[in-house]
Structures are given as C-alpha cells and as structure tokens.
C-alpha cells in the first residue's frame, strides 16, 4: 500500500508519520517514534508484550493497523510517568517489588495492570489474575507482579 501521512497522538504529543497505513502500530511506535515500551512478542495478539493504552484500553499493537487509531489517544509505557519523571504507581510498585527477571513482559504487565486498576481499583487476587491472564510471562515472575499490582492498588487508595 502507498505511504500516507497519519496523525497520531501518543503520550500527549501530536505526531505526523508517513507510513503504509496498514503498518501495525507496534512498528510505528518503535521504529518511527523510538518508543521501546511495546515489544514484539508473537505478532498474533497472544502474549500481551506489545500492548499500549488506546483511549485507556489495553490493546495489542502487533496487528493493529496504524490507520485505525488515528484519532485516539495512545499511551505507552514511557507515557505513564509524570512530566517530572515520577513513576506511575504501578511502575513504582514493580520497581519496589523487584518484579522482573528478564523484564521483557513488563510492558504488557504494566499496561494491562493500569487498565485493570482503572476498572477495578481495589482488586482481590482472583480479579488480578483474571485481569492479567492474557499477558504471558516466561520467567515465572507472576507472583511478584500480583504483589506489585496489589500494592499499587493500595497506594492509589491511600
């Protein structure tokens, strides 16, 4: 498909990119905008690694054409921190709990947890594992992520 100009709003900033409109959002974010949060994991929307928030909803970007999100606000991992660089409570909780081994899944975990907590501000363990179930982690760091999400919920509550 020929290239087109596409308007994107990412992490509060407006961008114009010239790409094939069928390009998955993932590659535009990573290669055109230099945003390393969303990761390539499977290309099949099976693992969650490439998720971003599209209008507040956690969505896989590996098959999502960039043209489909032209008018919607997109937030990546980098956009969760405050302008002063302060971490979002979920990011801070992952650091505090040292909830990572290789950390490749951390993007999908945090993005999904932020969406989960906006719908369910005070989740119990079952609600967390249910909400996180589409995100894969291979190192077995799940238990730490659950603790981190719980403590982020408590921090937001407080």
């Amino acid at each position, binding site marked *: 498909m020929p290239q087109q100009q596409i308007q994107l709003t990412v992490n509060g900033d407006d961008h114009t990119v010239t790409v094939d409109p069928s390009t998955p959002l993932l*590659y535009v974010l990573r*290669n055109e905008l230099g945003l390393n949060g969303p990761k*390539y994991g499977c290309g*099949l929307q099976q*693992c969650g690694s490439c998720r971003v928030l599209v209008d507040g909803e956690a969505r896989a970007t590996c098959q999502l054409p960039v043209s489909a999100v032209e008018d919607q606000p997109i937030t990546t991992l980098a956009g969760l921190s405050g302008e002063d660089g302060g971490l979002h409570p979920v990011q801070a909780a992952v650091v505090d709990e*040292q909830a*990572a*081994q290789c950390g490749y899944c951390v*993007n999908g975990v945090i993005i999904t947890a932020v969406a989960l907590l906006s719908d369910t501000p005070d989740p119990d363990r079952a609600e967390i594992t249910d909400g996180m179930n589409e995100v*894969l982690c291979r190192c077995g760091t799940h238990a730490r992520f659950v603790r981190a999400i719980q403590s982020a919920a408590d921090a937001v509550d407080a």
Partner: protein
Amino acid sequence: MSDDAPKRDASESSLSRRIFLKSAGTVAVGFSLLPGCQRTDGETEEDPDADPARSSDLPPSLAQHPRIDAWLQVLGDGRLRVYTGKMELGQGIRVAIAQVAAEELHTSPDRMEVHLAETGVTPNERYTSASVSIEHSATSVRHASATARRILKAQAAQQFGASPDDVDVDDGTLSTGDQSATFAEVLGGEQITETVTAPADLRPTDEREWVGEPVQRKDIERMVRGDEVYVQDLQFEGMVHARVVRPPGYGASLENVDVQTVQNEIDGVEQVVQNGSFLAVVADGEHQALQAQQALRENAQWSEPSSLPADTPLEEHIRDLPSETESVVDDGSAGEGERVSASFFRPYVMHGSLGPSCAVGHYDGDRLRIWTHSQGVYPLRDTLTELVDLPPEKIEVKGVPGSGCYGHNGADDVAADVALLAMEIPNRHVRLQWEREDEHGWEPYGSAMLMDVEARLGDDGTIQNWQFDVWSDTHSTRPGGDPGNLLAGRYVEDASELTSRGYLAGGYRNSIPYYELPSRRVDAHFFDGPLRVSALRGLGAHANVFAIESMMGELADRADADPVAFRRRHLEDPRAVAVLDAVAESAQNVTVGTDEGLGYGFARYKNSASYCAVAAKVQAQGDDVTVTHLWGAIDAGEIINPDGLRNQLEGGMIQSTSWMLNEEVQFDETHVTSREWGSYPILRFEEVPVVEATVLDRPDEPSLGAGEAAQGPATGAVGNAIARATGTRVRSLPVRSS
C-alpha cells in the same frame, strides 16, 4: 548503548588453552568414535568434573585472566567499571557483581557500572551457563577487587607517608588523618595492572555491608520506563530490517525462488539474500521486511523434507532408536527387598523466550560487529569466523540483554543469520528480529528423555539397591567453533555437517541420587533424536530428578513412611536435610482436603551446587489438576543478594510447573507444529500457584549456582502431590496430555 569502553585484549591466554584441552579430554570420554570429539563442545564449565576450579585456589576465570584491570577499572568521575564475561539473562547478575565489588572496595554499588560480555573488552568466560556466573565470575571480581583494595591502600599510604594499616577506604576515597584522595587520584590516571596470584583476604563476614543485602537491580527502573534495555531496542542511523524465510522442515532444501517478483512488488526491499538454502530479505522498514518475507514464502519452492516420526509415540520411538551407553556409576547390583519399578518420560520442551531472538550486525568492509544476546560472545565469534570467512580479530561481538533464554535458544542462530546478511550489505546496520514461529519452530529444544527406575525396598524401610537407566539426546549444541551448530550453517551453500555431539553428559546430570544408597547402577543411553536440541535450564537434571523424586514418593508410600521422614532416612548431608525441613515446616500446618494432595521434591543441583527442596499442594478437579501452592527452600552457600536468589527460586518453581503440567513440543512428519502459544500453552496468571521461597544463608560457605536448582525438585513435588490427590502416579509429562 555505551560503546566507550577501551579496547583491550583480555581474550586469550596460554593458561586458558591448557585448561581448554584438559577439559575437552574429559568431555570426550566414552565417545571416541564420534568425529570431532577431541574438540570441546564449549560446555566445559557445565561439566563439574572438568571444572578447573578444582585444580586451582583461584576462581577459574580469575586464574585465566589474573590482571586486575581485566576485571576492574577506575574511572575519572568516581565510578568504577567492572567487567564480566557473563551475560545478563534476567538473573540479575549485574547487581550481584556490583555488590561483591562494592563489598571488597568498601564502596557503594551505586558507583559500579557493570560491563557485560564483549569480545576484546571483557574476559573470555565462555558461556553464561550451568549456574556458575556467581561461582566463577562474581568470585573472580571479588578477589580482584579485594586485591585492588590492598594495592590502593599501599599506594595511598606511600603518597600520604603513612602506613597502609592507617589508610581507610570509604566509598571510593582513601584517607588518613586529614589527607584524602579518590581512587583515581591515587592511581594518577593509571589502572591497576598487577595480577592476582593467590586468593585475597575477603572482608570478614561480620563486617560485610553489601554482600547479603537485597540491593535493588538498576535495570528494572529502566524496564518500567520503557527505556532502551534489550538488543531488540537498538536503533542505528540508517538501520535496515531483515527477515529469514525458513524451509518447511529440517531436511528441506531450496530448489527455486522468484526473487525478481518480490523485489518488484514490495516497496523498500534492499536485497533478497540467497545462499544455498538460506533465504532472507533486507528492507528499509520492518513492515516492508515482513511483507517481503511473505511474498518470498509464496515464491519459493522447496524439496520435500525428510520425515519426522510422527506416527509412533515419541516414548516408543526413543526406546527403539540406536543408542550408545555410558556407565555413570556402578557399585554393585546386590540388594534384597521388594522390587519397585517404573518408567518416566519427558517430551521435548522449548525455551519459549517471550521475545523471539534478535541481533544487529554491521560490516564496514573490514570488520564485522554483532550485537547479540548470545550466552557466549567469544565462542560465537570463533564460530562465525568460518561462516563469514573472517579471522577472529576482524569480528567484534557485543553482548546486549535480550528476552530471558533459560538456556541455549535462538540467540546464536539469529546472530549468525545477521552476520551473513551484514556481510552482503556493507556499511548498514542490519537488524534481524526472528518471528514467533522462527523461535518456536527452530530453536534447539531440551531433549526428550526416558528414565527406567528399579529399586529394592528392604524390610527396614530403606532402599537396598537402585538401578537407573536414562535415554537422552545431547544437552548442548552451543556454537563451540562448529558452524553446523548454527542454524544458518546448515543451510548455506557450503553447509557444515554437525561434527560433534555436544555435551552428552548433560543427559545424566543429577541421574545419581543424592541419597545414601548401599548399591547403585546408573547407565546413560545416548540417541540421536528427531528434533534439534541443546541446553535447556537444568539440562538432564529436570527429568532425572522428576524420575528420582517420583520414585522416592512411591517408595515412601510402599514403606508406609512420611515422605519427608523417608527422604531424611536416606540423607546424611545436614544441608540437604535443612532445606527439606524448611519446606516441611512451611507446609506442616496446611490443611489438605478431599481431592487435594501435598508432595515433596529435593535435589542438590549437579550434586555439587545449590540444595533445593520444594513442597507442592495440588487440587484435583475432574480430569484436571490445579497447583495451588508451592513452597521452596534453597541453600546456595553465601548469599550475595537474597532477593535475587528468591526471585530465581520463585521463577524456577513456576516455570518447572509450567513444563510439567503443559509443555510438549509437537510435530508432524514435516516439522514442528508447536509454532505459537496456542499450540504450546505455558502457565498463565490464573494457573500460577501462590509461591513462598525460603533462602538459607551460609555466610561461611562458598556461593553456589542457584538458577537451575528448582527445576527438578518442583516437578518432582508437583508429581507427588498429584499422586496423593488423585491416587494416580505421574509417569509421563506433560500431565495435561497424559
């Protein structure tokens, strides 16, 4: 990425050569008929018998690279750069290395910058494998740092006109009375070039500030911010993107491909590269590379690949394959008592890295540079020389973390792919991101294994005789100088045949029970199986411990004994008893309801590294089981970072549970059919048990490798818990297919 490290030649020494050859001899025992066995497979550090530490007072890496500035450099800005020949694989090696350097230099770990494996820059520590990074690399850094502290104090004392005993070291500064100077000032811009010839006096246990503390990893904040962390994140000016088109099966060859159509139809195609049956495309954009890959697939004709044995159950197929036998131990077949026997099976298991392998290459017409998450930058370099026809001094390989690998995944293969492509497109950075199906379908799996166990249980309730036969393929085909071990090496025009069988001894890792048994026979039978295999976390220990611990559970039941008491009856090592007692204590007040079961597993990894015990609670639900709780205890000697150790134990238990419940690489007669997560399901959040990890610190004992310790015990514990909950013994993995 920081590329400002000075180039130094820290790579080779005559000593390393000597140890290399000595180790190779050990590996080759019993396989003299196989070609190439005189050359090491590169897994010497995975072979405890070949561990050069046994013949030296110094940690082996330090004995090979004794100059202090090979490990440690003092920077002008108050920081210290610590060099390790190991890679960050998600195990947090950087913080552990920073901690030991900080401890011995009496300086905050915040000042330490840890430089990961890079050819020509860091010591050549071969592979980051076998859980020896702490034992070999961190211990080397520690002794180098302690020696550096002594030298710094002596030099400062001279400059201050004081006695070394009167010089204090505090956070990068040396002082006495009202005089003080930073490390860099004392050295006057020089580095410490003295060699370490003997173990240094380490800081006394009761004065330690950093070792044993849960110092946080610095990289996790970078991860949560989405900063550049992984090789997948590297971006270079003018970088182009590549994709490889795989054959339909291992034995297929490329007969014809319509390159012109692809180049005409797809925008942005820089070049289609065809070299024998190695087929790839390089394009300006990543999406364009993907489109061109698809077009190439549609325009390529391949020969019929050889058939895989899809019609026979794998267990039967393996038993029927020709094999070569090696005696692991044989101290008699005597022993009276009730005969208890069983066969156990583990299928092929994949590493399944969440991020498929990736590498970047650049060839400037003279030198080739590779950015890779390989576990062995030097062996990779030495293997690439033949593939790209460049001498080793013209190849630089820089380690950059990737997605967790848990052993030898596609990391080296993608680096070899990108090396071939970079040579074709000089002066451009070429990035190759493997697709999910490349990783799932082409990585070297953990070997399928079969274990026959027969024990004699005496009237006194102790085991009188133990017979164990294990069938396994090799457990390492790391590059090791053999281009045939790199995927591309088998498909290029001058394809390399495999010339060695790699690290066969991995198949009998932990096949000798750590229990006290009056007579034992263990034989290993090596077959050449249908799928590509290499090192997966724990090598053969996972399946062997599964079989041993399942049998221990069964024998305890036959002896009408408590499973913990039964194991204790056969253990003399108090450290083994201590980890078992720790999990028994954690689980002792747990209520076990109807359809529930509690089970135990124990092993000392490699029978020489960490002690680990696991208790598991499961709940049977119709035909399925849920693992609800895991308790683990580990003794890894002196703990460098208790939180890192706990993280490894928690993760190991969860991953092991995933392997044993769910995982099985499936194939049809053409190729592997487990090409995505739907056909190879791993444990998800809802299935993950509550885990509790206990770490036992032994401050006066050497630190031991821990990253692979839980794989066997956790599978053993879950299997025994399932037997209790369902009344049916687990003989064949994964549980959900049997």
